């Protein structure tokens, strides 16, 4: 049957081939397409339209208010505060996580006894449920009875307030985030490192380069696409955090950890300002999208070096 089909395809004129491509293409894509359209696209458009209304999702009347939700947002100090908190979070976690991830990847890319074990250990936090780990860290961070303060006291350092002070709450979340995501960056860096031809390292050695030179002139430049990829993914992911804040701090104390998605959540489900909340979502979408686009364009240039 396949033979007949092949003959038939060969015999059919160009138009038929195009149609066959069209049918096959959309046919293969159809399951994903249907799902994504139904459960992502369509709701997103619906949400976008609602962002131009004042609505609590319960009343039968929706008041069209044009851009006033967006204007109100841009004038709202709470919105900018939560954006600032989120950026603080990003800047606190991403560089350290990436640096540590890279260091671990470089250390573990060679095959030595136990390398696989270490890889698994550092990756394991990602595998666990965010809610579950949030509960564990909540217990460790307990300012009165938690184990971390106990350790600090043992080594002569003052106990910290961790999540119960506005100044230390976000750093506490940052520490937990680094613990959770270092492994992710590490794994992707490992994959990137595997793509670097060994010959280049040998060449560098023959030129008299030591460990640091190898890193600086071979590893780092060739990892640039990987690094960019991780940077982009990290920014997108960190902008979306919610579960840790929801479980551990509720946005507090005093709004110190009220990241943008949590702010959105509160507006929707505590203030019942659903249109307003969706406006936040779309501003967030624009920020992430433009950043990704910029990275992509910039990244392309780096790649071709």
């Amino acid at each position, binding site marked *: 049957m396949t033979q007949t089909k092949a003959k038939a395809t060969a015999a059919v004129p160009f138009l038929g081939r195009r149609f066959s491509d069209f049918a096959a293409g959309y046919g293969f894509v159809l399951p994903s397409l249907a799902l994504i359209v139904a459960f992502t696209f369509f709701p997103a458009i619906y949400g976008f339209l609602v962002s131009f209304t004042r609505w*609590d999702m319960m*009343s039968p009347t929706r008041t069209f208010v044009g851009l006033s939700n967006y204007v109100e947002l841009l004038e709202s100090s709470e919105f900018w505060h939560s954006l600032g908190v989120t950026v603080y979070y990003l800047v606190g976690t991403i560089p350290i996580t990436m640096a540590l991830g890279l260091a671990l990847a470089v250390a573990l890319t060679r095959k030595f006894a136990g390398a696989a074990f270490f890889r698994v250990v550092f990756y394991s936090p990602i595998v666990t449920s965010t809610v579950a780990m949030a509960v564990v860290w909540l217990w460790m961070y307990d300012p009165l009875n938690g184990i971390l303060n106990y350790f600090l006291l043992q080594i002569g350092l003052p106990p910290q307030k961790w999540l119960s002070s506005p100044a230390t709450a976000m750093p506490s979340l940052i520490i937990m985030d680094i613990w959770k995501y270092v492994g992710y960056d590490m794994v992707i860096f490992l994959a990137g490192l595997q793509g670097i031809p060994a010959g280049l390292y040998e060449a560098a050695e023959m030129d008299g380069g030591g460990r640091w030179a190898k890193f600086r002139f071979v590893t780092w430049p060739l990892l640039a696409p990987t690094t960019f990829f991780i940077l982009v993914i990290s920014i997108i992911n960190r902008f979306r955090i919610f579960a840790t804040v929801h479980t551990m701090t509720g946005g507090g104390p005093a709004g110190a950890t009220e990241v943008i998605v949590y702010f959105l959540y509160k507006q929707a*489900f*505590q203030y019942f300002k659903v249109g307003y909340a969706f406006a936040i979502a779309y501003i967030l979408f624009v920020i992430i999208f433009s950043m990704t686009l910029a990275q992509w364009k910039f990244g392309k240039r780096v790649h071709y070096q």
Partner: protein
Amino acid sequence: MVALAGMIVVLASLQLPASGQGQVTIAFWHAMDGPKTPVLIGMVKDFMKENQAIKVDVTFQGDYTDVVRKVQAGIAANALPDLVMLGQRHGIPNISDSGRLLVLDSYVTAEDRRDISPGLFGRYTHDRKIMAIPFLISTPVLHVNASRFREVGLNPDKEPATWDDLVEYAKKLTRDVNGDGRIDQWGFHTHGDIAWHVFSFIYQNGGALYGRDGQATLDTPEVMGAIQLWSDLVHKHKVMPALTHAGASRLFITGNLGMFQRSSAFVEGAAAQIGSRFEYRVAFLPKKKFLAVPSGGAGLGVFRSTPEKEKAAIALLKWLTGTQGIARFSKGTGYITFRRSSAALPEMQTFFADNPREHVASQQIEYARTNPPSRADGAVWDGLEKLIERVEADSNANIPALLKELNARVNRELAQSR
């Protein structure tokens, strides 16, 4: 032949399923979790026994916030229950305005109005219409470690009656027991949900959240006085450790907290966990200008649907919130017996005599202060919570300025939601 036909008819009529005789199935969403839930489930089961034609699907939906979320989504998707437990500060105005809730005025009798304080009804009234019947009611009470009182030379029979008493007692109860420089025992603390506890101080000082004109009144001297007390407890008198409300319960249960303000619903669970570790008592909250407490908890509302379902839901509602119902529920769970007729029942009198701790809240409810729910409740709650956290973290916080800012913001929200 006739005998056979007769037998068949008899057999057939015996096997007629109940639904064939007009059985109604209604859905009841509640927010009760923990060891008290079986009381509610038991009551519903007994209702079904007495009303064979009604089947009730009881489901736990999470906390009050989860219930509102489900209601929100349910309104959009036309998937609402018949009877629903609505938290007193969880969106009742919005849910009412959806038009989906049944107005309950015609089901409330004059006797009910005499039996339940108007303040309580007020919490579930919107646009002058009763949208839910109070059911699960609590107030904050003072949980006291009487053993600790004695240790520091205080008489546990003399409960702190005023703010000054509170501060004085708390200072005595705050101490470093083992000499390591860390305070091990604290004098006073409150549970989370701090906005609710702040309300009690505000009301006690003669303040209010809203004025008669519906505008926010958060920047008045009365409110400032309440917040100032809170700040002093943390910074000046140092009897309350800042921002550790989540761990306060544990502190109390392990005997390291002298006075603990938390909902009356905590009493039974506390007693069970404390055991014989120390002598545990419950006291009234102290007063400043008045003895006044906020009310908390939930009421039961009915969503509109078919006449049969509404009728069934109302029947269940009356069963649960009637004199017998409230008495049974109170006795089983420790929630307040807010119906005067229920409190007067001999079984409740005996219960109170045997359980003085549980009795306190039912007595304190007479001093409940409430406002009707407002669309800006979310803003008030969130804003006040953030403000208090700020005050606890920073001894130099400018309280009047913060309150002014909050007041303006709440009024803005109110204006918008008109």
